């Protein structure tokens, strides 16, 4: 069974009285479990809207989103919340860590919403921080972490519930080349190890180059959908001057 299936998916925003913006305009797409794909396209092509629709953060104007075979059409807010909680992990461009919580507490948060028992929560949070090599920073607040470290915390948070799908919206948008490479490296490793689906929205060709499938959007529609051999990662290489 495909992990994500989109059928004639559309999201239309009313703008003014007569104008309407077709942010997502009839997309059909199928993503298998364990895929590592990039969604690219110019600004305003509907990348983020598409990601929000897949992640059940937003509801489509028409069409269907199937997550692990479940049609999310017509689900109420409570049921959509449950899908987000159980099936989806989010990673954002600006990390979106809670400033009052340290790395460990940020990572553990989704498990609290899942009502996982206390000791189990802590064990899994340690594990998740281990996966992103941040065990030594677990007591640090976001303000004490570098951008790359913050994004790794966010990835650990996205993975802790063991979701079938990780959605990343410009995860490297605020990072330099070296950190971008490391974040992609972490995600690819986790994708290999845990076989979770990763869908990464990006406008960075380097990031897209590291994925196995590139879906290009233009004006809310799929312009191209290509599989590729991902580029090799050499993160410690200093960029040549």
């Amino acid at each position: 069974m495909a992990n994500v299936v989109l059928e004639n998916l559309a999201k239309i925003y009313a703008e003014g009285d007569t104008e309407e913006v077709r942010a997502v305009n009839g997309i059909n797409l199928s993503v298998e479990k364990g895929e590592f794909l990039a969604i690219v396209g110019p600004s305003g092509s509907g990348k983020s809207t598409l990601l929000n629709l897949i992640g059940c953060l937003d509801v489509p104007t028409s069409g269907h989103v199937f997550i692990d075979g479940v049609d999310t059409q017509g689900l109420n807010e409570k049921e959509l919340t449950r899908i987000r909680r159980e099936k989806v992990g989010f990673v954002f461009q600006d990390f979106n860590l809670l400033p009052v919580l340290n790395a460990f507490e940020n990572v553990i948060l989704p498990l609290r919403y899942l009502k996982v028992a206390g000791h189990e929560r802590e064990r899994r949070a340690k594990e998740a921080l281990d996966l992103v090599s941040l065990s030594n920073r677990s007591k640090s607040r976001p303000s004490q972490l570098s951008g790359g470290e913050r994004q790794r915390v966010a990835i650990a948070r996205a993975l802790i519930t063991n979701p079938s799908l990780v959605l990343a919206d410009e995860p490297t948008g605020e990072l330099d080349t070296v950190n971008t490479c490391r974040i992609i490296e972490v995600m690819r490793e986790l994708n290999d190890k845990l076989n979770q689906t990763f869908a990464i929205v990006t406008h960075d060709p380097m990031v897209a180059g590291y994925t196995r499938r590139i879906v290009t959007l233009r004006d809310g529609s799929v312009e191209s959908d290509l599989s590729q051999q991902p580029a090799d990662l050499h993160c410690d290489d200093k960029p040549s001057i």
Partner: protein
Amino acid sequence: MLKVILRNMWRRKARTFLTVFGIVVGIFALTVLGGLSARLTQQVKGAKSWFTNSISIVPTGGSLFGGGENQFFTLSKVQEVQNVPGVKEAIAGIGLLVKSSQTFSFGAPDLIIGLDLSRSQDLLKQLHVDKGRGLTSGDRGKVLLGSTLANKLGAQVGGTVDLRGRQFEVVGILQPTLAAPDTFAFVSYKDALELFFKANPFITRGQPITSVIYATWDKGANPEVVSNRISKQVSGVRVISPKEAEKQISQFSLIFNAILFGIAFIALVVGGLSIINTMVMSVSERTKEIGLKRAIGADTRTILGEYLLESSVIGLLGGLIGMGVGLLAILLLNDATKSNNVTVFAISWLVVVGPVIFATVLGTLAGIFPALRASRLRPVESLRED
């Protein structure tokens, strides 16, 4: 959970402090007034138990505490009252202020009450003597003192006290009741009459007078019915039945409690609005965080609960501090007035716990609107916020 809420509050130290301070002021006022009200309730209860033991008959226009020094009637009225069916004993009495210059007092004034001792044993039996003995028929120059007054005058059983320039031997001191009889000095009618004439030299002596008549009733008689009969049969008097005395005394505390509720209401409005304001600001500041929490699986109820808890904590904090400061003020003020033998405040469980519960409930209620707002935010839109 609580840790997170406290950290969130700490993020905006100044604003949190100001909001909590707003509650503190209101709750402080509430606590202090609560203490005042508790003390008043004690006094009212005591006063009721004393003043409802008998029917008080005063000259028209007189009050519960006797006719005052310018209003009195002749002794023949005592016989008239005595003749009313149902009246067991009509007792001639004279009420005089201990200090002629006393103009204001908290609760009952210090009073010299002269009673016809041969007839008032029933009435005096209601008083509980702590030290010494009660007054007996034929006592002259003797005084039975209420506990507060005894303290104030530094009186000892067997010693003497000066009342309006005359020396009285202290035969007994009453148990403290925290109320009316505590500030009374009971003497014989004749002694009081002499003091009365001395204080009012223009009144022709020889004509025995009385400023108040206390009437007790026959066993089984309804004091209200008896009171009614007295006012019908005896002219030129105002009859204060036990029920009416109770009403008058209650009225006093009712007015006070109305003021108390007024203050509580102001505290409610001011404190509540300031919490609402703070919470609305918190919600809009943290819109993005709310969106994030929703994205990673928090449902609307979780968000609602978090914000409600936060505003309850603000209320609780303000309540605890306000009550603490109020309690401290009560203790200090009571200590300061101790030397004057006046107790202005009483502390009860209600005074301590009431304001804290009030503030917490207020905080919770004030949080409802902002919390609902937070929980109804759409995840996508909140995440887009900066």
